[in-house]
């Protein structure tokens, strides 16, 4: 069955430090991958997406993610974290032609001053 795993439930980083959030997926076909961010009481905002082509994708707010087929991973990175980045981050995979998104359980990012 298709699934998305985010191994880290909670991560704390200092402001200005680099960040990497992990995401592993299980899907037989070519995956369409997404990262979303959710601030408290808010809906989900799309950070970036991977459909095909260059495996390093750039998103909004200085985020990037790298698709590694051999590792079934799509990790999110940011070189320097800002306090405003504190939020819940979700990785998701779209199933085939359905447009149905399967989400991971999310990673809560806390930023220390």
């Amino acid at each position, binding site marked *: 069955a298709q699934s*998305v795993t985010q191994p880290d439930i909670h991560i704390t980083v200092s402001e200005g430090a680099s960040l990497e959030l992990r995401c592993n997926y299980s899907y037989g076909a070519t995956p369409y991958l997404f990262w979303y961010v959710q601030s408290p009481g*808010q*809906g989900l*905002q799309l950070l970036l997406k991977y459909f095909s082509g260059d495996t390093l994708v750039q998103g909004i707010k200085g985020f990037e993610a790298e698709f590694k087929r051999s590792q079934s991973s799509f990790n999110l990175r940011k070189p320097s974290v800002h306090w405003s980045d504190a939020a819940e981050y979700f990785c*998701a995979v779209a199933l*085939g032609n*359905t447009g*149905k998104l399967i989400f991971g359980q*999310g990673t809560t990012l806390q930023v220390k001053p």
Partner: protein
Amino acid sequence: DAGVTQSPTHLIKTRGQQVTLRCSPKSGHDTVSWYQQALGQGPQFIFQYYEEEERQRGNFPDRFSGHQFPNYSSELNVNALLLGDSALYLCASSPTSTPGLPRYEQYFGPGTRLTVT
């Protein structure tokens, strides 16, 4: 340009009651998907509407039903509410795409927080 809007923001219902949640998609979008997000979990796909028909459905019972109107807005109805239905209900819309291509890029609304007591 308004994004995806949902109403109401919060709702409290009693077990056994019925509830209707509403969603207006982003301008230019014709597909609406609904997700349930329980506390501390990722969103789970309920169903998707396009051209006023349910096109895809997740693993949710028939108590969950929906509708899409000619203006692309949508409703989610839940009958015989259970305590376990308490969650944030998210609506997402997708842009009109090339026929035959999937509607992957989904834009989410702020959600409706449903509490069942």
